[in-house]
């Protein structure tokens, strides 16, 4: 096993912040995707040609969680 280093409080807080950044960003994405997804499925049911457009709109909010991820990586880098 890797040797465990003693961590100072700042590093610990930074790591918690990294987790929170991804977690809350993912929550935002989830809330947004829930509604878009429902609407997209409805549209596709009426017209299968809408699948591509529906998919593009559906995955738009995923950028939010990516932002969270980038911030998390930067925080871990600083920690």
């Amino acid at each position, binding site marked *: 096993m890797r040797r465990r280093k003693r961590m100072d409080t700042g590093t610990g807080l930074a790591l918690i912040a990294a987790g929170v950044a991804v977690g809350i960003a993912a929550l935002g994405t989830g809330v947004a995707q829930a509604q878009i997804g429902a609407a997209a499925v409805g549209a596709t049911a009426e017209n299968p040609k809408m699948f*591509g457009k529906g998919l593009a709109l559906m995955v738009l909010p995923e*950028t939010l969680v990516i932002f969270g991820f980038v911030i998390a*990586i930067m925080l871990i880098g600083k920690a």
Partner: protein
Amino acid sequence: MLRPEEMTRAVVVGSIDSLDVTIECLYELGILHLIDFTEQDEEFKLGQPLGRASGTSQKLLKLRAMIRSLEIESHKPAGRVDVKEIQAKIEQAIVTLDMNTSAKAESRQKIQSLIREKESEIKALEPFRMFIIPMEDYEGYDSISVFTGVCKTDPEPALRSRLHDYELEVNARKTDFAVALFARSEERFEAGRILAEHGFQEIKLPRLNGYPAEIISKHRVVIDDLEKDLKRIEADLESIRKHFADFIVASEEHLAIEVLKAETPLRIAVSANSFVIDGWMPTARAGELQTALDSLCCGLAFVETLPAEKHDEPPVKLKNPKPVRPFEFFIDLVSTPKYNEIDPTVVLFITFPLFLGFMVGDLGFGASLVALGIFIRAKFGGSPDARKLGAIIVAAGLMASLFGLFVFAEAFGVPFHPPEESLDEHSWEAVADIPIHPMLEKMHDVTEMLALSLLAGWLHLMLGYILGIVNTYRHNIKHAIAKVAWLLVLFGLFAEVMLVAGDATLTSETINSTILSPIPTASLEIVGIAVSYAALVFIVVGVVILPVTEGPLALTEVAGVLTNLVSYTRLAALAVGKGGMAMAFNTMFFPLIFESGNILLIIVGALFLFITQAFFVFFIGSLSAGIQAIRLNYVEFFLKFFEGGGTDFSPLKYERKHSVVTK
């Protein structure tokens, strides 16, 4: 590539007498995309269906009814039927077959409903079979109420203590009690309550005469007879099916084609003595039409061709080399490009496997993807969409395997060699020493991968804007300049990001010393972040041009360019995320299995590992990687240049699968 098939406007004009032959000729060639005639005037009206249309439609209708009653909708004929044979036999065949099948199908339906009726009566009588009470005695009383049904528990003791006078028949069955209760009308509420307490469910008795046991056995005999009849009819239908299914299905196809042709005049302009057919055809094949008309119509019909004009919107037939063609699937999912637009299929052909390959980046999962693609093609080869999807998956899988082999050096989420940062991590070294070392460690070089993703995003977005410039410069120079402004903003943002990254990653270091080396590195510090003067100049110039060309609202989108750029970090995010998921599994199971030394455990464990991984990592990981790879194209890339809304090229033609024309 990049441009759809070039189209030529073709106007076919001829004498009304040659309309029939001309339509025949156009369908045979299958290259003319008809423009529906709509503007009727005094001279030209919409044509009437050819004379044979109504007769043929009627026959077609009868054939389809037959197909339904014979239940041969999905019948695949063994061979093709000659059209001459169809034409010779169809009249007689329809008369005899129609008589046979429709009458038989009708009686089959009647018998089936009769059997159902008798069976439901038997079901209702069954509980009362043991009671020696004729059916007519269950009703018709003035002062007596009758309850028939089943109880969950025996109601007799309760009835005895709470009712004054009653007559009860109970038959204890396996799970319940069949009950027939005759109570005085004034006590019917109390009787109902008692029965309800014992879980009473009423059974409505059918109106019949005689004892239930007798009725049931009579019904059974009737059902037996009916079933014999049904079998006979089924056998008759089966023999018709056996002898005529091929012929019926082939005739249906042939007649459908005949009706299609006969109704074509409804879409074209016809005057008293002439007709005009307006349409588009691929320029490369423009000569064929005149030659065909000359030989078939004996000089009674002519073609006039015109090149596409600026405001025309010809139908779009994508033109790509064979390996690229499966990726047209992704274009079909969104929208057909306009005729004057760039067809981005070839870009998808490069970027989709590259993005997905980077995100999956694993020899094992890549090879599994290739296998999955081949499986889809083999299993669902009949559907063109499935064939395309299969080819796409194979291409993506190959790229993922290459990335897994040479860049990340790992298979099934396990690296070939333990990373330098943690030498005690599990690796394939336990099994074999593979002489390939990773260029990138998924779990340790995250910043490097982020920088690579940003670089990929920058190149992809630049290409998007450049395609946008190509699309717009001919008809709207202002929009083209706006695209240049966006390009400047993007360039400035990227230069700034690279300046901030500095020497932190190999990618940014290389970019700074090569592509961005002519740009001065002078910078000022704003809230602790170095801001490059040069980048600032690029962004400001872009921002100044934008309100002039696209209006002030465009300024709100400037931050969007940064969003777009950062959005590509999902490439790294997915790769790391999937790597982490695989690592979690492997830390748990890998030592148990490969370092145990027990051969049986290794085999069973490897299977278990394969199944769990296959599901969690391969299926979920690859699916989301696929969606993300296509999303980067649809959202970030397409929005820079793609409008879509073109018309698909659908020429007049038909396909014969079960019938064949012989000379």
